[in-house]
């Protein structure tokens, strides 16, 4: 008698779809719960003082301003290197190179750069930038390491943006007497900018949140003053959170959760901005 319940394909489908929904819920709800929990415990700590003051009494009080500034400096440095390099590399692949063995090797290299574990980037940054190039533990070393790490994101996003520009624009530019670089500069790049911007934002978001690459290349736990040049070490948000959470006893919850909240809030805001920009330009495109 009971087996009639699951006999029909429709019933099986309903059951199956519910199982799928449950799976998705298992994936989503814990994280949403975590975010809510973090807001609950960290929000009390998010005072103006927290965001603008320096830490006191062994990080347990005061603010996280130096960590925020350090992260900002790092990210700016990263962009200054990775954005031009990545955009030009994408222009090369998309507009200059004919598909060949070399372009396949380049693409393989990009895939590999994307897959290198972040801690291995940290090792490389240590061995190459800090030691070999003698940059020392510095913003410069950290920014350069993060730049190489962000390259795949920027190249991929830029290539996609370039490819979305209609081929006819290029034909028109050529037929009007443009050289290849003029064609790229005036008839392609301006229309690929939203996509490039999205890629840059996503790259920034990732770089801001990464700890392992900066562990040995730039991060300092406590600095008496803000970094004065790119050759100074700096405090950064992710590393600060890590140390607060694992190495300092008796930190008030609102300080650690507050730091975590600032970091997550920053990352989520950036990603939301990227999503919104992407959607906006997809809608208002004129071609």
């Amino acid at each position, binding site marked *: 008698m009971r087996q009639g319940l699951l006999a029909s394909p429709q019933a099986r489908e309903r059951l199956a779809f519910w199982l799928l929904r449950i799976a998705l819920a298992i994936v989503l709800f814990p994280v949403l719960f975590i975010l809510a929990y973090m807001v609950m415990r960290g929000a009390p700590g998010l005072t103006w003082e927290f965001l603008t003051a320096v830490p006191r009494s062994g990080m347990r009080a005061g603010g996280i301003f130096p960590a925020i500034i350090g992260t900002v400096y790092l990210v700016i440095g990263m962009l200054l290197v990775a954005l031009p390099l990545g955009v030009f590399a994408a222009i090369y692949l998309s507009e200059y190179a004919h598909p060949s063995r070399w372009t396949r090797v380049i693409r393989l290299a990009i895939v590999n750069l994307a897959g290198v574990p972040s801690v291995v980037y940290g090792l490389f940054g240590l061995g190459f930038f800090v030691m070999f190039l003698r940059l020392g533990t510095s913003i410069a070393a950290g920014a350069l390491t993060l730049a190489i790490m962000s390259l795949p994101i920027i190249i991929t996003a830029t290539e996609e943006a370039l490819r979305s520009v209609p081929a006819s624009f290029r034909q028109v530019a*050529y037929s*009007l007497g443009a050289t290849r670089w003029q064609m790229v500069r005036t008839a392609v790049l301006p229309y690929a900018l939203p996509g490039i911007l999205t890629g840059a934002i996503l790259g920034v978001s990732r770089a801001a949140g990464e700890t392992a690459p900066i562990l040995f290349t730039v991060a300092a736990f406590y600095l008496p003053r803000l970094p004065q040049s790119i050759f100074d070490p700096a405090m950064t948000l992710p590393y600060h959170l890590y140390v607060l959470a694992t190495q300092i006893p008796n930190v008030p919850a609102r300080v650690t959760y507050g730091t975590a909240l600032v970091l997550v809030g920053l990352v989520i805001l950036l990603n939301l901005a990227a999503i919104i920009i992407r959607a906006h330009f997809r809608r208002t495109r004129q071609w």
Partner: protein
Amino acid sequence: MVTPPKLHIEQLSIRFGDLVALHAVSLAIHAREIIGVIGPANSGKTSFLRAINRMNELHPAYQRTGTIALDGEEIHAMRDVAALRRRVGMVFALPVPLPMSIAQNVLYAPQLVRRLARSAAEAIVERSLTAASLWEEVKDRLHDSAMKLSGGQQQRLCIARTLALEPEVILFDEPCSGLDPISTAKVEEAMVQLKQHYTLVLVTNNTKQAARVADRTALFLMGELIECDDTKRLFTAPRDARTEAYISGRFG
């Protein structure tokens, strides 16, 4: 002394990889004439046209033998391809306005060459749009987006865009294929006006259009030039049987 024809094409053969697009075509095009190029699909008309401003070279598998001379000078020996394309302009089958204002579209090409003073820029815009028979319709909205124009207006804008460079030759690749009859008439009218100053090469799928507009007409078939003659004579008393068959619509 005999002046060389504006364009002299000699034994031009074109391949794309293994595909032969054009075989041993020789043709002389005279200054300030409209020459129509007709023929069915895949007859090599577009490959022929795009050889004249070296646009075929954008295709990775392009191979060419034969010569093309512009005012007696071999175009493939010219080092600056961009300069050639400024002398030989092109209008494509589908209008491609760039997503900018009407004025910016017209000024696109001249600004690649040098910075323009405001008065010079305005003069170029008015001159080019007038020559393309579009000035009256858009003179009050030059800063509106070009995407808002109708199809026929966009195509005339594309003509104005090439005219901004004051080329010597203008190549038309089936320019009215996407347009309604009224817009087509306006474009054809513009072409006839342009003949006074420019040399026009018009590739068209529409034999009636060639009959209306062209001074001479050439028939291409399967990559070969079959016949080229004064338009009236080609259409009323063609010399080749294939020409006769194509014109009377027995194949297409």
